[in-house]
């Protein structure tokens, strides 16, 4: 297997580190330019960076701010020209990242991990279940599907947020809803009193939809309790464990399967994941 980036016989699978000319160390971040910055809802910020590197939806980048550290951020786009990163400022690094302006440089390592195996889902219908910032990696999946729509059946999206202000990519979603690319089901769990829309958790809407498991795969991304609840309600609809793909979250430092932080049983979230088929890690106790 040769490297798609540098064309040499190195066994990396196309990392920014190798697209850059010259030898770049494993832990050395590469400079990329910020093309666009946009506020998404009340909490999230979108940063579009110029990086031409092949990636799967669901993979992630290690974003560095020198002096503050490194944080894994998942990819929220699927394009050959740019990469969208959706940042929720909760930690020291992410709070610093969102202070950058278009034209500034961002330091990245990656992309790392294995994403959603999109080829595997060809000629099937899909269900996407996202919670909060878990919608961001699924946006990458949606970008992919929008560009390869003929290969997929009907697609239902169940997105849950705490309140309407948290929702992200409203404009794109509205456009897709209008032209019928996707069918959307929203749920807001903690909306303000004046809110007149769908309330409660996504699980309620999954169960109400009554979708059968025939030729369908499910992709879930969100907080762990939400993923477990969603899997439970999918089970009531008759879905099997091997039809469900989830994206895990763990503390990680090296992103290359060495530092040991992100281990779930014998699997590294950074290297073997973050996307797992549910039956692979269902029994995982570590």
């Amino acid at each position, binding site marked *: 297997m040769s490297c798609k980036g540098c064309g040499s016989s190195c*066994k*990396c*699978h196309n990392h920014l580190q190798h697209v850059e000319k010259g030898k770049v*160390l*494993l*832990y*050395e*971040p590469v400079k990329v330019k910020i093309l666009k910055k946009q506020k998404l809802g009340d909490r999230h910020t979108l940063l579009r960076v110029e990086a031409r590197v092949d990636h799967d939806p669901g993979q992630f980048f290690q974003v560095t*701010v*020198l*002096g*503050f*550290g*490194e944080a894994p951020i998942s990819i929220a786009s699927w394009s050959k020209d740019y990469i969208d990163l959706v940042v929720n400022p*909760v*930690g020291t690094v992410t709070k610093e990242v969102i202070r950058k302006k278009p034209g500034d*440089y961002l*330091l990245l390592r990656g992309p790392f991990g294995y994403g959603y195996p999109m080829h595997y889902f060809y000629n099937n219908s899909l269900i996407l279940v996202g919670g909060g910032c878990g919608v961001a990696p699924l946006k990458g999946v949606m970008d992919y599907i929008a560009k390869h729509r003929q290969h997929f059946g009907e697609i239902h999206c169940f997105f849950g947020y705490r309140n309407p202000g948290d929702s992200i990519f409203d404009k794109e979603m509205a456009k897709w809803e209008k032209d019928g690319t996707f069918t959307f089901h929203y749920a807001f769990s903690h909306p303000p009193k004046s809110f007149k829309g769908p309330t409660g958790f996504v699980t309620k809407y999954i169960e109400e939809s009554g979708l059968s498991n025939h030729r369908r795969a499910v992709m879930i991304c969100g907080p762990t309790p939400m993923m477990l609840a969603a899997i439970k309600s999918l089970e009531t609809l008759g879905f099997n464990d091997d039809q469900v793909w989830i994206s895990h*979250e*763990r*503390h990680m*430092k*090296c992103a*290359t*399967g*060495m*530092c*040991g*932080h992100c*281990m779930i*049983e*014998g699997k590294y979230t950074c*290297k073997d994941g973050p996307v797992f088929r549910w039956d692979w890690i269902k029994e995982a*106790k*570590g």
Partner: protein
Amino acid sequence: MGYLLPKSKLNTFLELLMHGSSFIAPVRRKKDDVVVFEELEGKTDLTRLDFTTNPQFTAKKFFMPAYEPLFTYNMKNQKLTDKKITARQRILFGLRLCDLNAVKIQDQLFINPQFTDDHYQAARENIFLVGWYCNTPPSKFCFCESMNLTHYYDLMLRDLPGKKDIYIDVGSPKGEILMRKAMKLKLKEHHEHVPKIRTPKKLKTHDIRKYFDHPKWQKTTESKCLSCQRCTTMCPTCMCFDIYDKTQTDLEHGTRERTWDSCHSKQFTRVAGDHYFRPDRTARFKHRIYHKIVYYPEIFGQVPMCTGCGRCIEQCPTQIDFVELINEMEDGK
């Protein structure tokens, strides 16, 4: 392939090896009377060599120091300033078979087909491994007999019992290069089988997945384990690390460093929102044991990550003996 070295010429042989590179060997430290791996300063230091016991600390710090700078940076303009890797040529002498196998495990982890850790690789390529064979196990806690050890060294010295010679086994092309340094001695070529080491302690089973929910884990560790991380510091194969930025007080220059980390600390699995994936001590203790004996062979083939050196048992302040624990489970006690 190997050579015979008269015991009286051992020091001469080591002096020849020492020439031109940093020489690290087990010596008894004067201040606390503990055997550790230390760099020898000269020929006179050879008298301090001690083979009576396995060194208390492993040699892993020469492959990955406890604090290692990855690169330096300038925080103001967000640029990397220095990313040069420096590595010295080192000869590690006196490693037992358990520590040598630990190096093999580190190599599998850090130099794999997908990713190569540049810092580890630089250090590793400059290290020559010279082993010291255990005729008798150096400690009553050794259990390497049940850990499927293989021969992984450049040179292995074996004090032949009842004879006047030391047998030097050459295990790699690097070992052949090292032997050229001692060409002057005109050693006799010889071949001998390096036998398996027999140890007093044995781990009865590697198949411990079925005991994951055994109440004994909880009973032993919750009352005894202090999460002091002594076992992971002593362990030759515990190579988990943390990466962080350390900025100087001028808020401009800084270093990205990595340091040893331990899965026994609660912080190890912390994610944003203060969620811990292994909040209790039993889970963390079990994770270490299961990583060594169950998870690692599943990833890299049938050799466990534990090499049976017994340091974690010997050094545990509350005498938690995981081998005994597993054996008791196996016996159904």
